[in-house]
């Protein structure tokens, strides 16, 4: 049926006419030309010979018992290859990132609206849709648990109870209090990653019973560890290949089509393609945890923090995913990047019959940041202080102790980030305005200049870099230098962040080699790189590449020393050549040593430890990243409509390996933070999502994003690759509270919930 046969993976080869450059340069992406021309192959662009289309039937109910499923009608439709239910599963029925609780297909119970119940493979998507509609299921409806506040006292949604994790942190004197006390209750709505590339992939079964899955994912090996048991296959019979990823932001940490496509392919012995439509995407991946947060801050008259008390309730939805780690982050970052001598925090993540939640950019620290920054502003107001001043007074510094008792051992430029954000001149009145387009309400022409108020707000946040709490965090890389060309083999997922660029820059910086290719990422050619998550891939795999290349450089010098009888210690590599200090020896890298030099590096970051179960104390984190924002907004006081006019930001990046990419990450992260501040929320009613489409789940458009002024704070971290920290997540931490603070400044309202809806302002 298909006239094309896709490669399945994108070879990331350098552009022919492009010269490579090292760190601190804005080298272009190796995949950019393909992407701008539409020839880059994403996971939804794959086809295989004799391919079927797979589809998922999902529960329309948030809580129900499956009484009966009848797939015979579906099987009888011409063009349908198979229809499967939980009864047909070949292996382990459950999977999950940190706890194996999510069914591949619901067996007896469905626990959220959208839970997969049955699968169909058919000749084409339209036949597949009709077959799914022909499946008969009878449900016995159960009362869904949708209020996380009631979770602890309600019947268990899943065996084991409704508390996924409770994380206390107790430090200092519980009786301590300050001259002033401010209290608040804050809420964060459920945000969606809303990546554009749909969940998709192709599973290709082989004669020998093995299977190849080409899929868009963040973590190939973590998928593999979960997938092989579900398929009832030994690990070596399951190979996962990274197909082109159309954005991720945490939403591809968990399975999407993985098990289903493989299951259908094994059953039909034909390749199966699956690709979600947007409504299924909203049900097929996990969202950011909604949070309810109670805070009480105690401070001296001077503004110095004495104690922070907080209780953070996260709704994990029906299945655990990475919820326990998200709860750990929410607790550890609850107080913000401040010196707080006395801390009493508890974060709880509970199960409900709402959509499951998991990883999203900022991972628990986003919710906390909105809470602590709202409190800092409230404190400043009560003390009559400037919002910047109170942050300066309490700003965390290297050497300070965190609420966990851990000492900050890396650069912590909290004050510098804030100063950088504050240093940019404030914008003038919005003038670039065509018929209201530049004012709140935009194209709707609602604005009345006399009713627009401007507000300015600041916020600062921080989070951990890479995995924490004793999680075994490592990355494996293999580099091979042959005929003057370097091949890097790594399973790190390129999800748009630019790892493929940074990897080449680091290798070039160390080896001076011009010709660098990245081997396609998969689970069979190399061990795990860990997931492209937690801002960690440059820090982890980037470091591994640096180390591997340094080993290769040393071996090149040694080989030259031996072959050419020169002092190896005086040799160095640059611009594709090996040279001695005195310049007498100067040979092309390709000619310097005959045999290929290959090295494999397994890099782990500094050891981290778990949190004490009672007090939360422990050296939990490898490093931290900091960032601050100033938001300037215009608010239509009567209609509650908002236009963000400008964002300025200071970001702690350690070292910018690719400044243009770093700015891209920062601007993108800010747009997601802006979305959470004023428009993005997955709305549910009785556990049923109301706005699972891009018509009603609103993400910022071109017309919603203001200009962003970025200042990079470059304080290299010892041991990090050329000092570089991660940059993926910090930008989305503090933009939400900064925008909320600016709206508060414009309106004088408390606004304890994001996203802020127009009615909260207009009807206040």
């Amino acid at each position: 049926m298909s006239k094309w046969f896709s490669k399945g993976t994108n070879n990331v080869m350098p552009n022919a006419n492009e010269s490579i450059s090292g760190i601190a340069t804005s080298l272009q992406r190796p995949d950019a030309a393909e992407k701008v021309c539409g020839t880059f192959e994403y996971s939804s662009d794959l086809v295989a010979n004799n391919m079927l289309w797979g589809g998922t039937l999902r529960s329309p109910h948030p809580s129900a018992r499956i009484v009966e499923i009848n797939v015979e009608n579906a099987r009888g439709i011409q063009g349908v290859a198979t229809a499967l239910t939980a009864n047909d599963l070949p292996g382990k029925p459950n999977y999950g990132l940190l706890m194996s609780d999510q069914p591949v297909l619901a067996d007896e119970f469905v626990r959220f609206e959208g839970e997969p119940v049955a699968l169909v493979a058919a000749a084409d998507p339209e036949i597949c849709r009709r077959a799914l509609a022909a499946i008969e299921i009878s449900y016995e409806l159960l009362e869904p648990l949708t209020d996380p506040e009631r979770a602890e006292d309600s019947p268990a949604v899943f065996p084991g109870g409704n508390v996924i994790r409770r994380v206390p942190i107790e430090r200092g004197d519980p009786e301590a209090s300050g001259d002033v006390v401010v209290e608040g209750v804050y809420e964060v709505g459920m945000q969606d990653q809303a990546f554009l590339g749909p969940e998709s992939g192709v599973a290709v079964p082989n004669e020998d019973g093995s299977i190849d899955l080409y899929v868009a994912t963040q973590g190939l090996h973590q998928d593999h560890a979960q997938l092989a048991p579900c398929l009832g296959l030994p690990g070596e019979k399951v190979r996962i290949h990274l197909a082109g990823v159309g954005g991720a932001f945490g939403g591809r940490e968990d399975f999407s089509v993985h098990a289903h496509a493989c299951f259908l392919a094994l059953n039909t012995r034909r390749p199966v393609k699956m690709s979600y439509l947007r409504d299924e995407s909203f049900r097929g991946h996990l969202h950011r945890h909604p949070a309810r947060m109670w805070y009480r801050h105690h401070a001296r008259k001077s503004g110095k923090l004495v104690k922070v008390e907080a209780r953070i309730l996260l709704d994990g939805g029906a299945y655990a995913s990475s919820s326990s780690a998200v709860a750990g982050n929410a607790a550890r970052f609850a107080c913000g990047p401040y010196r707080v001598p006395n801390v009493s925090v508890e974060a709880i993540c509970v199960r409900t019959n709402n959509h499951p939640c998991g990883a999203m950019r900022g991972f628990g620290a986003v919710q906390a940041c909105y809470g602590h920054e709202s409190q800092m502003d409230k404190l400043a107001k009560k003390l009559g202080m400037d919002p910047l001043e109170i942050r300066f007074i309490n700003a965390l510094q290297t050497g300070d102790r965190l609420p966990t008792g851990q000492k900050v051992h890396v650069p912590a430029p909290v004050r510098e980030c804030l100063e950088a954000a504050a240093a940019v001149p404030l914008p003038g009145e919005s003038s670039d305005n065509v018929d209201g387009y530049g004012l709140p309400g935009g194209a709707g022409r609602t604005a009345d200049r006399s009713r627009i108020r401007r507000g300015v707000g600041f916020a600062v946040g921080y989070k951990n870099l890479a995995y924490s709490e004793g999680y075994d965090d490592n990355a494996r890389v293999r580099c091979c230098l042959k005929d003057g060309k370097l091949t890097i083999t790594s399973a790190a997922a390129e999800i748009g962040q630019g790892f493929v660029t940074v990897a080449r820059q680091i290798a070039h910086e160390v080896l001076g080699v011009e010709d660098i290719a990245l081997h396609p990422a998969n689970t069979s050619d190399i061990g795990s790189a860990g997931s492209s998550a937690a801002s960690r891939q440059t820090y982890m795999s980037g470091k591994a590449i640096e180390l591997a290349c340094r080993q290769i450089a040393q071996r090149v010098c040694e080989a030259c020393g031996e072959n050419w009888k020169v002092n190896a210690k005086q040799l160095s590599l640059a611009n594709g050549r090996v040279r001695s200090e005195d310049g007498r020896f100067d040979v092309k890298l390709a000619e310097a040593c005959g045999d290929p030099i290959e090295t494999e590096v397994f890099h782990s970051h500094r050891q981290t430890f778990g949190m004490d179960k009672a007090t939360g104390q422990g050296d939990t984190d490898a490093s931290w990243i900091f960032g601050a924002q100033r938001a300037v907004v215009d608010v239509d006081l009567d209609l509650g409509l908002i236009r963000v006019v400008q964002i300025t930001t200071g970001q702690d990046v350690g070292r910018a390996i690719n400044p243009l990419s770093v700015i891209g990450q920062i601007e993108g992260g800010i747009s997601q933070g802006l979305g959470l501040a004023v428009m993005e929320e997955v709305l549910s009613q009785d556990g049923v999502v109301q706005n699972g489409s891009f018509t009603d789940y609103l993400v910022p458009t071109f017309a919603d994003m203001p200009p962003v002024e970025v200042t990079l704070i470059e304080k290299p971290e010892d041991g990090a690759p050329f000092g570089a920290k991660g940059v993926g997540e910090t930008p989305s931490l503090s933009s939400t509270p900064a925008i909320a603070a600016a709206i508060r400044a414009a309106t004088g309202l408390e606004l304890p919930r994001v996203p802020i809806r127009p009615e909260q302002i207009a009807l206040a």
Partner: protein
Amino acid sequence: MEIERRYELLINGKECKVESSWLGESLMYVLRERLGLWGTKNACEQGECGSCSVLIDGMLACSCLELAATAVGVDITTVEGLGAPDNMTDIQQSFIDEGAVQCGFCTPGLVVAVHDLLLSNPAPSGQEIKEALAGNLCRCTGYGRIEAAVVKVVQQRHE
């Protein structure tokens, strides 16, 4: 004219025969799955993201909202009809130079939309750029580098 099974589309100047199993397929689906023109991307299939933007008789449109079988005899231009990796347009090159590409899923649609914009308005203001591109969602870049890419092309063309 009536169509029951087979039809021809004029895409990037070439006649392309289409044989669908179902005439309800969108132009986006036909371009991709039936004709192998994968540059037209499938992000929302509800006309909200612009990733599947094409030119139909020179008008920017979402191909997911066109019933393919009704697009016979019109001139369809996809991103593949604009430039190729070894022969890029100045707009495509500017996207690369200015860092406007991350995951790239929105990029082909944006490239088509920017070609359309600069044909009708060779020197757009910042606000005009925003309005013209408001139908193309990007989730990675926050639009800043995309705007820079458009501005740079405009500058280059006026030099």
